[in-house]
């Protein structure tokens, strides 16, 4: 698998980085990433993943573009109001980089379809906006053994962490108590500034690229929290819980490991 001339030119500014290599670029091209949500986090995350050359990107979102989305979701423009976000994101990402395949999934991620939608991805980037979805994504990725980048933003703050199931703390290890529905204000209630979504969503793309290429140090067993009002980043250590119902010993090995055991 060699890179074409247009690819060499398109990616030349990352191919010349001392940390990068042709092998890193090819590992992105052969990768499949699922982005859950095409909103404040998903727009920047998917943009930088597509621009960097991730070969296949799935975008899951069942919402339509609304006027109140535009201040924080820069793939969606004023003429796109009313369009399905997954479809519109796929069109815009295709304009950005026709070398990669973008697959829109205009669906809501639910327990009934989560495994089918996420299976086969090398990395899942969770850009969803509810705790219920976040725990579902975490548990599904742990069960399937898929690396995951979790994040959330609210107001002027955000956080991001990377997860390798079975190797590093999962979202449920770090936050074992699922908030009661309604106990945490939503973006609709508390608001969010678009720029913080841009920063955290871009960071998610960076983490996914590190997980896929082996370049750099992903945020494993670490949570990066950013207080955007004070411009104060904070790295918090976390670690696996043996009794974690998602990734602990009781949960059993991930599906990938099970398949290997069965094959032996």
């Amino acid at each position, binding site marked *: 698998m060699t890179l074409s001339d247009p690819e*060499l030119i398109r990616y030349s500014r990352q191919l*010349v980085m001392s940390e990068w*290599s042709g092998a890193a670029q090819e590992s992105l091209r052969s990768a499949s990433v699922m982005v859950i949500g095409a909103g404040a986090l998903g727009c920047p995350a998917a943009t930088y993943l597509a621009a960097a050359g991730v070969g296949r990107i799935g975008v899951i979102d069942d919402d339509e573009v609304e006027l109140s989305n535009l201040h924080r979701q820069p793939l969606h423009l004023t003429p796109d109001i009313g369009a399905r976000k997954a479809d519109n994101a796929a069109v815009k990402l295709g304009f950005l980089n026709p070398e990669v395949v973008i697959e829109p999934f205009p669906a809501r991620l639910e327990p009934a379809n989560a495994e089918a939608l996420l299976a086969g991805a090398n990395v899942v980037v969770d850009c969803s906006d509810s705790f219920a979805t976040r725990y579902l994504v975490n548990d599904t990725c742990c069960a399937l053994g898929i690396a995951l980048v979790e994040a959330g933003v609210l107001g002027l703050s955000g956080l991001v962490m990377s997860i390798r199931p079975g190797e590093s703390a999962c979202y449920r290890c770090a936050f074992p108590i699922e908030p009661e529905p309604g106990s945490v204000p939503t973006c609709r209630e508390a608001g969010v500034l678009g720029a913080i979504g841009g920063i955290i969503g871009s960071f998610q793309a960076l983490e996914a690229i590190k997980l896929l290429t082996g370049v750099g140090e992903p945020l494993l067993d670490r949570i990066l929290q950013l207080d955007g009002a004070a411009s104060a980043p904070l790295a918090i250590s976390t670690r696996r819980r043996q009794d974690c119902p998602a990734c602990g010993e009781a949960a059993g090995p991930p599906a990938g490991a099970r398949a290997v055991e069965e094959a032996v």
Partner: protein
Amino acid sequence: MSAHPRGAVAAREVQELDLRGVACPLNWVRTRLALESMPVGGRLVVLLDPGEPLESVSRSAREDGHEVELDGDLVRILRR
């Protein structure tokens, strides 16, 4: 009959790359990918335009840790 292990034979190979007319930084991108595909100890001879291409490709190759020798409009690189 040759008793050389394959790696030793490959390391002696000299590859050539004619990058005259190729602008920065694409000339370095191509040089870098060629070096990446070669075994340590392999030799690459790159033909470049004088001025910025010659200077920046040789500097970048040195920064990447390779041994570099300038010879007119040629850059001789020993892959490290």
